[in-house]
Structures are given as C-alpha cells and as structure tokens.
C-alpha cells in the first residue's frame, strides 16, 4: 500500500500553520497504524493528524472524529472536513444562491470557507433568517446528508444561523477538471465547444476543458446570466457538479465566472488513432437534418424531428459514425461532412444526386461509403470526448517500406 499521498496531505496541512514535518515520518506512522494494527486508512489519517496537532499545540487540527453523529456538533468545523450524516457547526460565506425548486425550501445555495465549499438547503420550516450572498454566517447544529451522492448541509428547525462580523475575502482554489467530483467545484477552463440548446430554458451548453480533461457544462436562463465565448478561458468558482448516467456535468448558474487572458492547451485535443475501420454504423452516409434554427437534429426517414415534428424542408448532411480499432482498443468515431467528403471522394452534391435518383435512395450512399471504407486502415486526428473521437482529419494509411524492413529485422532477430 502507498501512503505517500496521505502523508503529503497531512504535511501540507501543517505547512499552513508553519510547521514542517517530513512526510516520510508521517508515512511511517500511517503504515504502523494501518499495517500493524489494521486501522482504517481514514481513521489512521485522522489519528495521525490529531497526534501531531497535539505535539505542536495546535487546537482543532484534525476532526475530533470517532464520536460520530452527535459528538462535535457545536465545535466549528472546516467545510472540507464534514462528512455525511454528521451534525456540524460551520462558519462560512454564502457564495451562491439558487432558486429553490420546491416551496418546502426557503433558500438553497453554496456556502464556503477557506477549506472548501458545500451545497446547503434551508427548509422553509426552519425559520432561519434569510441569508445574503457575500455575508458570513455561523451555522450551528446543521445536518450533513448525502442526496444523490452529493453532500449537502441541511438547515432545519434545530439549527441556529447567526451572521458574523467576519468580512474575509475568499479566494477559492481551482482544481483540475479530471479531479471534479459531484458537489461543488471551481475550475480554470476553456470553452471548447458550444452545442445547440436542447431546451428552451437553456441559455447555453457545451464542453469545457483544461490540461487534464473535459466536462459538459450548462447555463440555464436566468436574469443576468450571459453566454460564454467559445475559445475563451474562464475562472469558474463554485459551480455545481452533477452526475447523470455516470457522467459529470457543470451547472454554472451558481458560479462566479471571470474571464482570464491566458490560454490552455486542452487535453485530448489532439488524440491520434491509427487502426482499421471495423464497423460503419447505421445513420452514416447522407442524413437529413431539422431546419429549425438551432435544432439541427437528424430526422427519421419520414422527416420527423423528435422536437419539431415533420420537417419537409430538411437540410442534407454527410457523416460517418463507426468504430476504429487498433487491435488493443476500439474507438467510437464521428466524422463530419468535410472529413467524409475528402475520405470517400463523395461530395454532398454527389450524395444528394444518388439519394434522389437511385432506387435505393439514401441507403445507396451508405452502401457506397461502407464499401469504400469498411476494413480500411486509417489515421484519425481529433478530440476525444466521452469515449468518442470527434475527428478533424482522417487519412488512409499507406504502405511504408521502412516499416516493413524494421519488422523483418524484428522478426528475424535472435529468438
């Protein structure tokens, strides 16, 4: 087992209060507790932290822990340290309010301190004072629960909420996109792509990314909300991180957003896969799209759009969906019109001509493209999002005699 990460974390905690402790020493302590005494890793971390805190005379370093649900309800806690099913007291700043989704809720939003942030809900029945954005509050005896896997602070009738004099400015630290988890998150990221909105209440949706990964984002229509610009970098503080079907997405309605002058090399932006096209999926070839402004969905054979119903004045488009296989992994790929045209040599106009005059219609385009591409070796460059490679360029592979010679040497070498 590796304890270096935990040890680093503890060491960093003490670094903040001016004590330098060798992570190696912490590691020894952790290892002893976990390996010799069979202590749970989380419990070991807490116990080592408390131990060291005692040694340096720092009060309230780790959590008092162990006592569980009731023990420390009145001692103020760092937000980062709270865990579900605890009664806690915290001091924090209200950094976001969102419109409550139910009359049973008086207020909901995000509260933060230097250590982190958490979603909160104040029940209407709690009679808690109305909190305002930017003010600090001490919230005593609230309950942390776990709603859909997201920790959230519940302010109920037994909770005391007091405004504090504190007027500290909070500078939240952003984390890599890949480290986001359901709850609240702050990132510095670039808008890579904007999608057509799929709902009339939606202001904007698309993809954000940084050096470590990409994530879907959404902004709902609300007064004062503005669209983000594709290609710009933003510091996004306190966005809601939601999980749906195992995928994360960022709701930016609660977030404080500041444009940043820098640029980011977004990861996955230039994935290259070389392999054989092992499947051309139905829905490839020539397709019809919904002409309604901002819709652009693929229509069924009967020109039916799932949202705008029958659309006889559709727009033709080309695409190839399929699987590119390198023998180790199979990549789901999507080729847009220009890539399809240059790869198959069939232009949109030529495809239209076939679709309208051939007895097989659109199927004929699919068959011609499949016959040209299935089983062929290609190299695709593009952006990998959610296991799907959005291809910017795709070229047929050519036989390289240097590769041939190198392989002959490799196979003929000493066994």
């Amino acid at each position, binding site marked *: 087992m590796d304890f270096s990460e935990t040890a680093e974390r503890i060491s960093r905690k003490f670094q903040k209060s001016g004590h330098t402790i060798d992570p190696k020493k912490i590691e020894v302590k952790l290892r002893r507790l976990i390996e010799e005494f069979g202590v749970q890793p989380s419990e070991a971390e807490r116990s080592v932290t408390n131990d060291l805190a005692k040694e340096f005379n720092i009060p309230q370093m780790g959590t008092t822990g162990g006592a569980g649900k009731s023990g420390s309800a009145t001692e103020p806690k760092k937000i980062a340290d709270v865990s579900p099913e605890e009664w806690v007291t915290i001091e924090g700043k209200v950094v976001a309010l969102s419109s409550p989704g139910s009359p049973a809720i008086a207020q909901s939003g995000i509260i933060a301190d230097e250590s982190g942030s958490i979603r909160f809900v104040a029940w209407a029945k709690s009679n808690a004072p109305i909190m305002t954005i930017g003010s600090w509050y001490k919230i005593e005896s609230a309950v942390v629960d*776990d709603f*859909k*896997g997201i920790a959230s602070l519940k302010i109920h009738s037994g909770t005391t909420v007091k405004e504090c004099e504190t007027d500290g400015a909070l500078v939240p630290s952003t984390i890599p996109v890949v480290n986001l988890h359901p709850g609240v998150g702050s990132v510095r990221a670039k808008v890579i792509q904007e999608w057509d909105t799929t709902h009339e209440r939606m202001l904007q949706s698309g993809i954000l990314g940084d050096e470590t990964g990409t994530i879907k984002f959404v902004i709902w229509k609300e007064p004062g909300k503005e669209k983000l610009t594709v290609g710009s970098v933003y510091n996004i503080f306190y966005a809601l991180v939601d*999980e*749906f*079907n*195992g*995928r994360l997405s960022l709701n930016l309605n609660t977030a404080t957003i500041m444009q940043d002058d820098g640029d980011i090399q977004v990861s996955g932006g230039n994935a290259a896969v070389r392999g*054989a096209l*092992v*499947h051309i999926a139905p829905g490839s070839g020539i397709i019809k799209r919904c002409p309604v402004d901002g819709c652009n969905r693929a229509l069924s054979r009967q020109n039916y759009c799932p949202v705008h119903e029958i659309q006889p004045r559709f727009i033709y488009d080309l695409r190839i969906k399929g*699987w590119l*296989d*390198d*023998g*180790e*992994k*199979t990549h*789901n790929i999507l080729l847009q019109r220009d890539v399809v045209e240059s790869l198959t040599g069939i232009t949109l106009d030529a495809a239209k001509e076939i679709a309208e005059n051939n007895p097989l219609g659109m199927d004929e385009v699919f068959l011609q493209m*499949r*016959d040209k591409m*299935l*089983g*062929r*070796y290609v190299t695709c460059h593009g952006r990998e999002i*959610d*296991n799907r490679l959005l291809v910017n360029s795709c070229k047929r*592979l*050519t*036989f390289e*005699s240097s*590769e*041939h010679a190198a*392989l*002959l040497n*490799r*196979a*003929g070498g000493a*066994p």
Partner: protein
Amino acid sequence: MSSNAREIGRREGAFEREPARRVFASELRECRYDFKEGMDEKSPTFVLLPTGERCNRIFIVGTLTEKQRQGDQNIFYRGRVVDPTGTFFIMAGSYQPEAMQQLAKIDAPAFVAVIGKPSIYRKDETSAPMVSVRVESINIVDKDTRDLWVLDTAARTLDRIEKFKTSSEPDVTKAKEIYPAIDLGVFRRMSYDALAQIKI
C-alpha cells in the same frame, strides 16, 4: 443505494466494445481453449490464443479463395480466407443476414477484410478442435490493405511473443498451461515468413 445506482450508471457509460485482435491463420488454428467471462447469458466468449491473449473478435484480411452456399431451410455460407500463413474458415448464417448478404455478393478470388468472432468446434468428442470465424462484416479491399494488415498482424504477434516471456498476467499463465507444447519461436518464424512474402 445511491452509490450502487451510480456504479451501475458508470458501467453503462463505460461500455467498451471488444477490440478486434490481429492474428495469423496458423496461430488461430492452434486454439483449443475458449471461456466465458461472467455468468450472464450475454457475457462475451473468448478464445485464448497460444501467445497468451484472449480474443472475442478478430480482424483479418486475406484472399477469399472459396465460397459455398449450404443448407436448404437455413441457408448459410462457408468460405476460406487465406493469409500468408494458412487458412481461416469463415461462415455467415441467417442469424447474420447482413454479413451473409455481403458474403453472397463477393466472388472468389478477392481480397477481403473480415471482422468476426472466432469459436472452437468439435465434430464429436474424439475429433480435433476446429476454429471457425462467424462473420460480422466482410468487404472487398485492395492489396494495399492486405499488405498493411500483414505488417499490423506481424507487429501485434511479435508484441505478444515478447510480452509472453516476462508477463505474469492470468491469460499468459493460462496459455502456458493450456498449450505447453507450443514453442512461440514458431510464431516468430511464421511472422517473418509472412512479412517476407510481401513484395516491395
């Protein structure tokens, strides 16, 4: 509950299609161990290659030399696809109507690319196992694609042979147990011979 629901969601989101392995005919011919991962009826079946890799799907490019229509009620097609090392036996039945129609359309001889699922058959208890490939897709390709496939397959085969010596992965260990008599040097020479057949 909630964490359980999330796990299921992840699994669905993380669906991975089984990759199509590259293997020469004379290696595939040696296979005689197949197994199922998981208890589910729809769990994938794998054939274990002597070089220590499981495959549920393979990608082959070769020459279709023979094609035969068989059966009266249940029509199916059999074919032989030849690579530089030997012959693959392919078949497509009415359960794969598209593959069957594709195969029906092709006249031998032709260079073809085949994506399919290998499986092991025995005529009866005592007879030697036969490996055949159930076609998912088949398509006519050019000679360049065939040559690229030989390079690709030789490289993948050599990768597996090199990994075999040092790896302690379960599949490699299992292959050593199932195929104790097979000397991987044979497959190295086979790869060399296959490469040498390509004229520059």
